[in-house]
């Protein structure tokens, strides 16, 4: 009984005697079995077959739901072997996502109709998301409710064109200035839906001064506001005369902007093609930069307050670092006519520009070309643009007396989005970004319909720029080597910087 017995009748089984049982420890056996078998040689031998066998066995109730109002059960296995050709599938999804992007790209939401003259400026209230102020060339100032696109209340009073509008830090006072040499302060109704028109006198104060004003801007944290006219004047809410003024040169100042990070720094642009940076704490201006062409408007980046972008007459926007004005950080080229207004998104990652060529463009803060262009047959010269405070909408005011509301992301779904929908949108965005460099996907994402005059003008500018470059190369080739230095575009447009 001590030796193992090989049973010749059943070649598929191997049997062991009882002695070897003691060697096996019980915890090893998952399906430990022993059974008796009849034998050779008339001797009863206990033969045992030991094996550990396990087969995949699933019970249906682990994988199906118990009640009909339960959620369906989902079991996941992330093994890449189960998903062959996953890159090709991702590519197809990216292509489909790009196409869907274009299918759902309907950026225009609506127009706000009411003014009877061209819109000269827009202001947004930092403490109230739904309201926007607009002023027109005939002195009409209105407060609009963006959701319903209707006028909430009007502020009559200005005699001529209103050139600048701004809202105070606490969101209670509206400041407006115009070419009738007045600065007016108005009371803003509370956001809790007081829709009274003329029940109380909304005008808080009217200050008359010596010259017409071109722009106004309020400090981000404080009680002062600055106006631009013959010189830069600093006013306080309660004083009827400016508390301070700055002047550098004899030309008019066209626009003024306070820095969002440092409440005492402001940037102005003048009609002598300069950009000047002032500090309120010192009595003299800090820095001046003269360019080749006039800057129509300036906007500071709210997330990186040392950078600002200037909207220039020569169809480009120049981003500067205020600490280093000798070279532009980035040149944003895509407009075909003068850029009239610029505003940054509260995320600091994009900005919107409105231009004389009847289009509104959205640029990335560090991108040389625009990400998006909005145009309509009915929208004429765009004089002012604003990015809404939740970075979802863009408001443009134009020559045709309308304010237009656009989506910042053209194919975004408005309204409440379910979590699953949002995840799907995020996935589509991510897969599109992964393959956006491949030619088919890029062609679809890049495609925009441009109005014919803009398209032609763009081609013309490109031909002209190429011709200019060729001539420059030939001039350089015909002169002594090194006599015509190469200048980068970032520096090219700057004439000089003055301390």
């Amino acid at each position: 009984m001590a030796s193992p017995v090989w049973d010749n009748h059943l070649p598929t089984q191997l049997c062991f005697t009882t002695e070897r049982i003691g060697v096996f420890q019980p915890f090893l056996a998952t399906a430990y079995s022993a059974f008796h078998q009849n034998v050779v040689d008339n001797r009863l031998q206990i033969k045992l077959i030991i094996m550990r066998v396990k087969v995949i066995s699933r019970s249906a109730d682990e994988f199906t739901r118990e009640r009909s109002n339960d959620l369906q059960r989902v079991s996941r296995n992330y093994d890449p072997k189960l998903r062959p050709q996953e890159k090709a599938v991702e590519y197809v999804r990216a292509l489909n996502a790009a196409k869907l992007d274009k299918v759902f790209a309907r950026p225009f939401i609506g127009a706000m109709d009411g003014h009877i003259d061209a819109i000269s400026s827009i202001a947004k209230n930092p403490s109230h998301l739904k309201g926007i102020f607009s002023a027109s060339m005939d002195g009409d100032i209105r407060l609009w409710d963006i959701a319903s696109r209707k006028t909430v209340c009007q502020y009559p009073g200005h005699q001529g064109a209103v050139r600048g509008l701004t809202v105070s830090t606490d969101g209670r006072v509206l400041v407006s200035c115009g070419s009738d040499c007045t600065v007016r302060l108005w009371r803003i109704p509370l956001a809790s839906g007081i829709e009274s028109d003329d029940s109380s006198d909304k005008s808080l104060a009217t200050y008359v001064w010596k010259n017409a004003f071109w722009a106004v801007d309020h400090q981000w944290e404080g009680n002062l506001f600055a106006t631009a006219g013959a010189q830069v004047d600093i006013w306080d809410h309660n004083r009827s005369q400016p508390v301070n003024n700055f002047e550098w040169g004899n030309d008019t100042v066209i626009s003024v902007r306070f820095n969002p990070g440092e409440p005492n720094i402001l940037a102005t642009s003048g009609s002598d093609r300069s950009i000047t940076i002032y500090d309120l704490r010192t009595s003299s201006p800090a820095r001046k930069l003269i360019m080749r062409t006039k800057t129509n408007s300036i906007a500071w980046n709210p997330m990186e307050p040392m950078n600002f972008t200037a909207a220039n007459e020569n169809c480009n926007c120049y981003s500067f670092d205020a600490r280093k004005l000798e070279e532009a950080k980035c040149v944003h080229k895509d407009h075909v006519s003068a850029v009239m207004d610029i505003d940054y998104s509260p995320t600091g990652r994009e900005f919107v520009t409105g231009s004389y060529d009847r289009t509104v463009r959205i640029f990335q803060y560090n991108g040389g070309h625009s990400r998006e262009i909005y145009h309509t047959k009915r929208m004429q010269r765009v004089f002012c643009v604003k990015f809404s405070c939740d970075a979802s909408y863009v408001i443009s005011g134009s020559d045709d007396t309308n304010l237009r509301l656009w989506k910042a992301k053209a194919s975004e779904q408005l309204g409440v989005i379910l979590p699953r929908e949002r995840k799907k949108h995020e996935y589509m965005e991510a897969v599109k970004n992964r393959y956006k460099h491949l030619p088919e996907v890029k062609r679809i994402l890049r495609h925009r319909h441009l109005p014919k005059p803009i398209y032609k003008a763009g081609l013309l500018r490109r031909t002209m720029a190429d011709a200019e470059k060729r001539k420059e190369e030939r001039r350089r080739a015909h002169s002594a080597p090194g006599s015509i230095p190469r200048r980068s575009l970032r520096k090219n447009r700057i004439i000089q910087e003055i301390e």
Partner: protein
Amino acid sequence: MEIHDVSDELEIKVKKYQRGEGADLESLKDKKLKGQLANKEDLFKKSANAAAKAEKWLMQTEEGRLEPDGLEKTWRFSQQSIANEVDVASRKNQFDLVLPDLGPYTLDYTSSGRYMVSAGRKGHLTIIDLHTLKPIKDMQVRETVRDVVFLHNEFFFAAAQKKYTYIYNRAGTELHCLKEHGAVLKLQFLKNHFLLSSINKFGHLHYQDITTGQMIGNYRSGLGRSDVLQLNPYNSVLTSGHSGGTVSMWKPTTPAPLVKMLCHRGPVTAIAFHPNGHLMATAGMDKKLKIWDLRKYEAIQTLPGLAKSLDFSQKGMLATSTGSFVQVLAASDSQEYSRYMIHTMAKGYQVNKVLFRPYEDVLGIGHSNGLSSILIPGSGEPNFDSWVANPYETSKQRREKEVRVLLDKLPPESIMLDPTQIGNLRNTKKKEKPKQHEIEAEKAAAIVAAKNVPLKKKTKGRSKPSKVTRKKQEGIELAKRSFVEQNKEDGVMKKKQKRTTDASELPVALQPFVSRKTT
């Protein structure tokens, strides 16, 4: 010690989910790109770790195994002894359907492993739901049926009948008659691309898109009649085996095969692909079974034996069948395949096809007397992903899945030998000009070849010695001419280049006008 083992184990798992090496960030100079890539690599690592942890802790089903003790061999265990050890539900998966009159049976499973369609040569088609073991539809088409394959769902299957191929509904309704394919011997369905492919009696390959009905490709293999057609699931490349021992690989957009390999010294009888994409098993009439590495196109193992049918399981076990003998080979750690289990059927049964059932430890056998199904512990992937293939799906889930799979349908151009190349940059290889001595060597070889051409001896005075020598000279001149032309072309190119001289040769006044491209 234990902690080490656990972390090593986790590392191996993490490697599986990382899908290759990370980007080489050291050599990048662009800081912005470096920062963005470093961020992305970090995210990839996190997701690979999360997937590895999920695999370790969250998998619901354990895989099967057969552990012998000591001197025991796994292939000594019969199906009977295994049946005695497993639970009742698994024992249900072992069955024998005796259908003696209707010819050798072939079978196909859906990708979830729940439904099986089988066809007897004499025209018997059935769809069986394997969870309830009930036939959904049983029909007789009264024609020879050579092959049957499920389309994307259990609702549609295609049967290669005597003259044409037909697509049927789950209810047995004939939906389409595909006349262009001809008399098909084998069918394959490319799941991701929705392409039904076939090889017919004349050795012609057809690819048809079943969503639009368009015939994408129709190619003559050029290698004669072949009844071996297999799909490589890793890259969706079709492979057919021919009677000369060659195996050719096809994609729908080119008329010539991608790869032609000489695998056997006789006709190829069966081909099978490992799910990882780089192992191929072929069997030929030269009584050899070879396992090939497709990355290097060389045989890593040769086993003796005939095989009429081969199939790899999800876990990499290889099932082979000849006559009435079925064996399953498994790869041990040393990557060598050795016998794992055997199953001998009763004497008269000729096995036609073996096919592993997905997500179960089951091997389906179609033979001359019906269908059998045996248990092979450890062959199936235990944990399915509901969003890839769900054996327990409801009708709503099935409908949603059909729509999503259609949205993700891949274009036929995306089939390539290496499917990870999509999205990568093409390497711009510069064509190297052959060096002078290489050209000379080629020329000499061509002249020798031309000299050694045996000229046919003609009668009636047409093979006079003068004529023979003249013909030979002409052959040699022809061989030389092609090289002379090549040289002339190069000479012209050289002259053209010569004209655009470099800067140092010009007078100072003209130096700025040297074209920048050549300097």
